[in-house]
């Protein structure tokens, strides 16, 4: 700590240069954070998946239905606590650009299987009591200015007609990364209004199990239960389902790594050049430090500390910026419902910034360390 004034003073030597270098780190880390949030949007389903939940879909495809009668049979399997079902509605609110996911659910079982979504009890009771009732996520309600009591018209696509819902509740998540864009309504309401071919079928099931360690066995048991039927099932953990869904979007991870790699390599070259210049112009001062008794290793450390401090400063600025940006929610209007940067990603970004800072400073620092006092003083 006693050397901190020396480091701070050196950074303040050329304020514009320091500010520009900090900003270059800030911009790079903002981009890093943004890419991490986008990556998270594609993979977050896997991150938030409950360890005690299984997903049961039609073996042929997730878009093929399953009979609603499967629910009771699944719930009878030892080790299963509860099963709930979903139907994708795919309706349009106002116009096609206004996208948010709408699901027909069974309220009673849904709440048991997904306890992480929080709805005030009075709102939930009102929703349960009204077959045309609906609950919207906080983000979607905020986006459209909805409030409890509003009537929400949604145009059906594969289930035609204008469907009107009474908004009785607005849910929030118990974790910052929870998806707050969904819109839920009664399965029974959909079944009533849907054409005959749509009755008695659901999109997929989520199954709450008593012991996550029993998941591999239950996956097998559920699929065996419905083997050789007209609707064979594919059961997997919720995490595996979310991961395979993310993979359908392409190799997002590679794309993000490639962009990030180019940005950070460029940053390394630019900041390395800046640090080299900063050290070169104070050669005599470093020589004096050595003359009065500072060791070569100290000189190495102080140059590296300055470089790391610039990088950390820029990193904190950039990551704080991206955190604030993501707090505003999905910037695409519904394409990225899980738009969120985790503290883990922020920590990784900061570590990356400091690593690049240290790498940028290493050559100038080693040159400073090897500086011979008499040679440096002769140049003055």
């Amino acid at each position, binding site marked *: 700590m*006693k*050397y901190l*004034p*020396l480091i701070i*003073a*050196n950074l*303040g*030597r050329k304020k514009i240069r320091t500010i520009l270098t900090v900003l270059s780190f800030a911009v790079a880390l903002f981009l890093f954070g943004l890419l991490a949030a986008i990556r998270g949007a594609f993979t977050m389903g896997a991150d938030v998946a409950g360890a005690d939940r299984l997903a049961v879909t039609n073996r042929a495809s997730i878009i093929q239905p399953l009979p609603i009668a499967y629910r009771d049979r699944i719930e009878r399997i030892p080790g299963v606590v509860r099963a709930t079902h979903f139907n994708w509605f795919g309706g349009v609110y106002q116009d096609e650009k206004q996208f948010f996911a709408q699901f027909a659910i069974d309220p009673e079982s849904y709440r048991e299987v997904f306890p992480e979504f929080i709805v005030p009890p009075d709102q939930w009771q009102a929703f349960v009591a009204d077959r045309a009732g609906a609950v919207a996520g906080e983000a979607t309600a905020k986006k459209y200015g909805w409030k409890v009591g509003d009537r929400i018209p949604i145009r059906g696509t594969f289930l035609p007609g204008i469907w009107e819902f009474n908004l009785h509740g607005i849910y929030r998540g118990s974790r910052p990364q929870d998806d707050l864009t969904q819109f839920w309504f009664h399965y029974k309401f959909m079944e009533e209004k849907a054409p005959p071919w749509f009755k008695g079928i659901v999109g997929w099931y989520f199954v709450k199990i008593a012991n996550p360690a029993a998941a591999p066995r239950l996956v097998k048991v559920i699929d065996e239960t419905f083997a050789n039927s007209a609707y064979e099932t594919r059961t997997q953990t919720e995490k595996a389902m979310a991961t395979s869904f993310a993979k359908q979007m392409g190799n997002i991870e590679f794309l993000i790594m490639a962009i990030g790699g180019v940005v950070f390599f460029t940053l390394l070259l630019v900041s390395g050049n800046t640090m080299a210049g900063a050290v070169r112009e104070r050669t*005599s*001062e470093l*020589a*004096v*430090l*050595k*003359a*009065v*008794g*500072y*060791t*070569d*290793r100290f000189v190495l450390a102080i140059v590296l500390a300055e470089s790391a401090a610039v990088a950390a400063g820029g990193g904190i600025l950039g990551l704080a910026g991206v955190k604030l940006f993501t707090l505003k929610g999905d910037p695409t209007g519904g394409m990225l419902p899980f738009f969120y940067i985790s503290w883990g990603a922020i920590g990784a970004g900061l570590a990356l910034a400091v690593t690049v800072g240290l790498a940028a400073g290493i050559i100038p620092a080693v040159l400073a360390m090897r500086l011979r*006092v*008499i040679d440096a*003083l002769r140049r*003055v």
Partner: protein
Amino acid sequence: MKLGGGNGNSLIQVRNLDKKYVRGSEEIHVLQGLNLDVDKGDFVAFMGPSGSGKTTLLNLLGGLDVPSAGSITVAGDEITRLSGNKLTTWRARHVGFVFQMYNLIPVLSAFRNVELPLLLTGLSKAERRRHVETALSIVGLRDRMGHNPRQLSGGQLQRVAIARAIVADPTFLLCDEPTGDLDRKSADEILNLVDLLVRDHGKTVLMVTHDPRAAERAQVTLHLDKGVLAEGVAQPA
């Protein structure tokens, strides 16, 4: 102070000191067979033409460079046997440097510049402050300790540099042309200060100078020519 071998009780003992540089195929002998004894409290000036080896001798005495042959012993430590961090640590404890161009850190205040050598010690913040204030009081700049180098005149800068050199109470001071960049008045002030350090504080000072008026202040002036030392006129102590 003695030229040639002394009785072995001197503070600084230089024996058969050689320094040569190799430039291409050419070997340049800067110092040849130097012998010198400096006692505690001596004020010695080195004079000589450019390239005579004055600064090289000062660098060797300060442990900034290593000789080609011979030995230097300071307060019982043969520094020519030390290297790397040991030599650096020795420098921190025993040598105070004063340079012609002051060599202060421009982004640090006078206080912080003077404090630099003390950061290497185990002194507390309060103790460091007390030492710095004392050093700045001796050079008459206690009221300027918050000033940055750019806010000080040349003479004041050199006084800050002297405060930095004495703050850790080193065994001896090495001054390389301390008045070389100053006007006459400022130069006299600096020389008065060096006199004061020798007379009232018992400091041992070795000074390289081109300025005969500066050399007059020393008790002994030694002339270096082609790497060989010769004694000048001894001044009254």
